């Protein structure tokens, strides 16, 4: 199953991924217009600080998702085939139990008492907008093995030094 992986070393905390995600979830799909929409669109990804690094986080589509068990309306399920944690807006009763139990705190309150929101991996996109937006390649979309390979390659190239020598 294709997932979003994070190369923490590479995240510079620019929050381009947040902006791209919010635009994707706006009506206009244009930055200049999206920032004037009412209610404002919500980004499903959030860049947080982890000791010294910035780290982008969105739904991990956990193997044993607490949100699925917590949802009193049965609105969140684990799709056996795709492995996705699927959120069904229509069933959401705005109790926001999922928001409270998510260990990564990546489910957000809907604005104006709208259903909660979380990353759905942008199924209809070939590559999710957040991944495309990342200027450093900190986000990767693909199979776990592909990501391992990529990381291996980056390590071999002496990634850390390369990053420090960009000047």
């Amino acid at each position, binding site marked *: 199953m294709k997932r979003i992986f994070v190369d923490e070393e590479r995240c510079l905390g*620019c*929050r*381009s991924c*947040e*902006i*791209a995600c*919010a*635009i994707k979830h706006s009506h206009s799909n244009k*930055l*200049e217009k*999206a*920032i*004037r929409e009412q209610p*404002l*669109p*919500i*980004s499903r990804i959030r860049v947080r600080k982890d000791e010294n690094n910035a780290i982008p986080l969105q739904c991990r589509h956990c193997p044993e998702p607490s949100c699925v068990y917590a949802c009193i309306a049965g609105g969140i399920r684990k799709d056996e085939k795709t492995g996705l944690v699927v959120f069904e807006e229509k069933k959401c009763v705005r109790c926001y139990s999922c928001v409270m139990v998510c260990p990564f705190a990546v489910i957000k309150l809907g604005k104006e008492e709208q259903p909660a929101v979380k990353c759905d991996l942008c199924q209809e996109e070939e590559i999710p907008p957040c991944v*495309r*937006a990342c*200027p450093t390649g900190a986000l990767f979309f693909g199979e776990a093995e592909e990501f391992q390979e990529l990381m291996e390659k980056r390590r071999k190239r002496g990634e850390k030094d390369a990053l420090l020598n960009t000047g």
Partner: protein
Amino acid sequence: MEWSRDGSAKKLLQEIREEDFQLSWDRLQEQLPQCGFGILGICCRNCSMGPCRIDPFGENAQVGVCGADADTITARNFLRMVAAGVSAHSDHGRAVAETLIKVARGEAPGYEIKDEYKLLKLALEFGLEVEGKKIEDIALQVGINALHEFGNQEGEITLVKRAPLKRQNIWRKLGVVPRGVDREVVEALHRTHMGTDQNYLHIMRQATRCALSDGWAGSMLATELQDILFGTPTPIVGKVNLGVLKEDQVNIIVHGHEPLLSEMIVMAARDPEMLKMAKEKGARGINIAGICCTANEVLMRHGIPLAGNFLNQELAITTGAVEVMVVDVQCVMQSLPTIASCFHTRIITTSEKAKISGATHMEFSEENALKKAKEIIKMAIERFPLRKKSQVRIPAGEVDLVAGFTHETITYMLGGMFRASYKPLNDNIIGGRIRGVAGVVGCNNPKVTHDESHLIMVKELLKQDVLVLQTGCAAIACAKEGLLDPVKGLEYCGDGLREVCEAVGIPPVLHLGACVDNSRILVAATAMVKEGGLGDDISELPAAGAAPEWMSEKAISIGQYFVASGVFTVFGVTWPTLGSKNLSRYLFEEIEEEMGGKWAFEPDPLKAAHLMIEHINKKRKALGIDKARERVLFDMEMRRGLE
């Protein structure tokens, strides 16, 4: 999106597709997607507590570490753009003033004072005594006075007095009359320092004052003093396109902004000794062609052909037929030496202010300009035999144009030799043959199809009988399409505009020169006001401005001084204050109450043209001339009257 609308650029792009040149369009792709905080203007790096960003979606931080909000941050960034633009134009103006002083002292061989009338006029405006004085002494004093306009600390810059009285009073009431160019720029940087000016409206006051010191001092002096030194342009024919490069000649491209050295290169290229050297190396002659505003300067005064505008600079080198490209300041891409390294081409930097890694630096000063110009030409001649025939691919085709319009020539062309005035122009506007006047200026930007927005906008304006004034890369864009050709340009005009242009024998798009020559538009607009019948202020004229493909900080400065001079001004591509609702509302709406002009942002060039036309119609209505548009055909008598 297509990269370019320019036929010869398209041909060349097609041909070099297989090769590994990295052009601005490729580099833009590598930058995409660009940072949304930067696009919206809500990123601040003015101190090391930052960088700080304001979340435009309202969830995260709404203020920087120091507490600055989106309004303050966007306004500060905007003011800094203005200050940089003002500096570019004004430092150019200062350089010309310094040259004038050296010429007056006899320290600049090759230069002379070409327009004494203009010198005297400016001397009188500076309040100088001219009676019985030698021309050199007057020039010296004018040069010194011009320098004072930059360093002046108190009072007002001199040339604000050129503006309509009503306008001057608006500025005085708001306290935005510039004191001196340098002072306004320094104050702009001071105010935008961390923890200083933190009220966006107050910051914008300084943006206005700073920008006015460009339009009515820095740029205006650059234009005036260049006219004095190199001659006030008069209508002149020229050619444009990459096809102006010659396969059998030594090709030298002058690129950048100042005419100080390029004037000398043009002169030296005509030297028989140089021509002889070129022949010895197997070339049939020496061909000078220009890019960007240096091109416009030497086109306006010498008819030197235009190789192209901003986005043509890299392509020009890939023709393989350029021996040297001589650059000075502004809008010169650092990529040039890299591309040149694939050819025999040399990039030569010449300004003490600008070096580029990988380029050859041959610094010029007024004292040695002619000598340096000859050295550069010799170098080009020597490189001619190194040109690889197999690499040469000049896209064929040149387009004719007429340029060289100025405030002065407009009065003569329209008013006739003996009663030079703006009356015929005003009458035609009042009578409705001409709906209004638009200044369409500015750059190219690889984010939009090269030249296309200019063409869509200008063609729509012409169709609606709007006379178009142009400068800079915008003018070159339209020249390539033939809009500056008095015959071909008429095809796009509405009947009224066509009649007037036909009768007078001018193209419907008037090329007024380089970016600093936007000051000519201010002077022309003021002359229209003073002529009478169209209100008492620039803001009452049926006129509008635009920069549909802008990219540089200079464009922001120009736009701000247009708006502050009362002109409705529309920009395309992107807009740097969108991250603040309040500042955007001020610039797009509220500023009109103060200044009479306002900004608009509209990336669709056709819609932008319609905004301009709507504005012009609104002004016509306010003047009570909106109904006078029934058409009177020109009979012979009236035609004769115009000649």
